[in-house]
């Protein structure tokens, strides 16, 4: 029988098989997908006591079900420009969670069967399970979050988290519940249409005329997966579809799902429409979808045997909006500070894909990659440190950087830091200048925070990509509270530690910090 | 006095900051719509308080800019008045009176509207010109 340790900070009796029985915890994390797992790993390493609750029976979050047909859109490269086992390698492995010990890093690489750099869904699920068990992450599974409240405790205000196992209390609450709740618009007749989440086995669509509402990646995932079964596929939504190749970012239809676009161009059975859905009618076994084209407003009725609403998801925040968590947009994403705290209800934080709601500067209108594992895993690591320092008085050491090493450090970060490359234009590598003129490494921080929050003199470096696809480093110099932006040159092989780059950095540092 | 040809009119109009960078074809079409007018000594080119209906550029002669009884400045050949009024038709802030025989080239707001609708590049150029001027003015006010 495994040794049972009492829950950290718990007031309830020890000796229960499942960890984290109802009681009082400093922090409660809800969710056991990659967001919850990554945060829990980091909090544990920082010595911050916390409970992790999940309504699922096992880890994996949305990867326990989705995507349906295809491999993931994120790659893990067995062979990459950087050596495995280095920090720089993380940039080429978008699917593994972050760990301090080498044995726990890059879990996905060995787990994938080598036939593709894109993991299958079962491989991703297995990888998250493997990470959780290897690193000893404890989760109370089969414990469903049902509601939330606030009350006055002996040490101040705290949250009451109602669950299927009873009430919990905590000072800080972190929601890592995913943007996981199926959503359909209330268009007349849409109630007749199954949502993406209820898609059946591919073979059951053989020979059918299929109508897919929505042209985001979920719609194209279905179109791609059903291309060899459906007799005809119509995809429709008001806006035109753009591909990621066109936007030079991860915005738009990803390359893996572009086959239906080529089919549409060749008029080979796929039709991609820019049209709004006005109503859906059902007659016997068939549907009629009434659409209106976006340009010209032409009414078009489309007959179909199957209709699927690939219309997206919302954030399942239960009663938190009523408690004061402001949300917005179709996805009901919570409004967040730069450190992923609710902008309107302090003490509530977010981890995982929900952190896409903290938009950052969005230079050129390009969003962060916080919606995906390779983006939000870094957010989670930063959040853990932020919670430790801000709420638990942790004083984590900062590495001093000798003046002679400053430029080499900045150049190396710009060239190799996986955080900067996986979260272009969103996360910055920051060095701060002490009162004595010495530099120290402040680590990775959200760029918006460095640019807006003021603070000691320092330098932030990011990597950014513009809409034309040019990738370059950008330097942010903060002096006396003012921030100045300096863009450096691109490089054909993205070597931002080239002689020219280092000279530019040297001049910059010398001029501004004479 | 010889009437100006389209090319000369276009060249004159093109000197305004407003039309800096405007496509040559658009300037040509504006020039075709712009009309010359002669003013005798003491005649008003524009009156203070009247709705602005266009811009004028002095071709020859000169004019005084007067607000109430106060003389603000003089305008000579190549100088503009009403560059903002041609766009927003706000009431004239001052009167402009010819001193001696004066010829001016006028461009009416509605003629400018018509060209802008036809040639969006012209509007974009004008927007840039205004934005540039705005930046300059703001910059001066804060330094």
């Amino acid at each position, binding site marked *: 029988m495994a040794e049972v340790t009492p829950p950290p900070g718990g007031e309830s009796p020890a000796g229960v098989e499942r960890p984290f029985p109802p009681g009082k915890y400093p922090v409660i994390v809800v969710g056991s997908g990659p967001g919850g797992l990554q945060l829990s790993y980091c909090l544990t390493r920082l010595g911050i006591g916390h409970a992790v609750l999940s309504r699922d029976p096992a880890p994996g979050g949305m990867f326990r079900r989705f995507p349906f047909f295809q491999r993931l859109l994120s790659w893990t490269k067995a062979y990459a420009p950087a050596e495995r086992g280095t920090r720089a390698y993380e940039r080429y492995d978008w699917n593994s969670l972050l760990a301090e010990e080498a044995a726990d890093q890059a879990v996905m690489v060995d787990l994938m069967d080598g036939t593709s750099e894109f993991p299958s869904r079962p491989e991703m699920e297995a990888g998250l399970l493997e990470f959780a068990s290897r690193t000893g992450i404890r989760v109370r599974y089969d414990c469903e979050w049902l509601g939330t409240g606030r009350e006055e405790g002996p040490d101040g205000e705290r949250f009451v988290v109602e669950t299927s196992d009873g009430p919990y209390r905590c000072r800080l609450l972190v929601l890592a519940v995913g943007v996981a709740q199926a959503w359909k618009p209330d268009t007349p007749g849409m109630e007749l249409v199954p949502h993406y989440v209820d898609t059946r086995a591919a073979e059951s669509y053989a020979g059918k005329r299929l109508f897919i509402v929505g042209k985001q990646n979920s719609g194209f995932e279905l179109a791609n997966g059903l291309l060899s079964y459906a007799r005809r596929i119509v995809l429709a939504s008001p806006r035109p579809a753009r591909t990621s190749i066109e936007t030079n970012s991860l915005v738009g239809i990803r390359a893996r799902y572009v086959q239906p676009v080529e089919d549409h161009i060749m008029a080979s059975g796929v039709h991609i429409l820019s049209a709004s859905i006005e109503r859906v009618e059902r007659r016997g076994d068939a549907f009629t979808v009434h659409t209106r084209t976006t340009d010209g407003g032409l009414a078009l009725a489309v007959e179909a045997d199957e209709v699927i609403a690939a219309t997206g998801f919302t954030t399942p925040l239960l009663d938190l909006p009523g408690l004061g968590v402001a949300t917005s947009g179709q996805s009901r994403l919570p409004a967040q500070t730069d450190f992923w705290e609710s902008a309107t209800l302090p003490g509530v934080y977010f981890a995982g894909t929900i952190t896409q709601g903290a938009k950052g500067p969005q230079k050129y*209108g390009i969003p962060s990659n916080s919606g995906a594992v390779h983006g939000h895993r870094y957010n989670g690591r930063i959040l853990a440190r932020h919670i430790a320092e801000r709420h638990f008085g942790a004083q984590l050491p900062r590495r001093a950087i000798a003046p002679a090493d400053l430029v080499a450090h900045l150049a190396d970060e710009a060239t190799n830091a996986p955080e900067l490359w996986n979260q272009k234009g969103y996360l910055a590598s920051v060095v701060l200048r002490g009162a004595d003129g010495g530099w120290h490494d402040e680590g990775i921080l959200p760029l918006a925070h460095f640019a807006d929050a003021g603070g000691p003199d320092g330098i932030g470096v990011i990597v950014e990509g513009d809409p034309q696809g040019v990738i370059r480093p950008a330097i942010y110099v903060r002096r006396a509270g003012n921030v100045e932006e300096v863009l450096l040159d691109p490089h054909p092989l993205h070597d931002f530690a080239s002689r020219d780059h280092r000279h530019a950095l040297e001049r910059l540092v010398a001029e501004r910090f004479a | 006095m010889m009437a100006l040809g389209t090319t000369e009119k276009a060249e004159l109009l093109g000197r305004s900051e407003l039309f800096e960078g405007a496509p040559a074809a658009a300037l040509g079409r504006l020039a075709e719509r712009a009309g010359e007018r002669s003013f005798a000594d003491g005649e008003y080119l524009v009156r203070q308080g009247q709705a602005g209906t266009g811009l004028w550029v002095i071709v020859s002669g000169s004019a005084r800019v007067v607000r109430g009884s106060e003389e603000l400045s003089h305008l000579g050949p190549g100088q503009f008045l009403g560059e903002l009024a041609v766009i927003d038709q706000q009431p004239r802030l001052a009167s402009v009176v010819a001193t001696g025989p004066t010829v001016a080239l006028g461009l009416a707001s509605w003629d400018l509207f018509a060209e802008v609708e036809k040639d969006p590049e012209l509007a974009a150029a004008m927007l840039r010109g205004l934005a540039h001027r705005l930046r300059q003015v703001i910059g001066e006010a804060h330094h």
Partner: protein
Amino acid sequence: MADSDELIDELAKLALFADLDEPQLRAVAHIFEEAWYAADTRLLRQGIGGSGFYVILEGEVAVVIDGEERARLTRGDYFGEVAILLGERPVADVVAQGPLRVLHLAGQDLHSFLLTYPRVTYRVLVEQTRRLRNANRWRR
């Protein structure tokens, strides 16, 4: 949703889009993205490039230069076009004063938008002129 009749009605009431007919309003609603920001979010940052064009639907922003508030903008007002048109960085911070709902267009899409909708461009021209008049007045 972006194609909702409510949004179209809202756009129809804004001076900027007053000369557009219904199909054009529908098209405009799809060119822009509706976006929400919490209080104190910076939409434009003084000295930092890559900013966009914004039209305010609900809420208020403050225009701040060198730490001093210069103006307030509210429903129907827009900002960001000067930096994009000139290809320069914004000279002001624009900061949400409360929950803010806007239409947003990425900078690189503004030019083609203005070319496609000359009546909107004309309105922007008139507004720019008004701003220049006001700015000139401050100088005297």
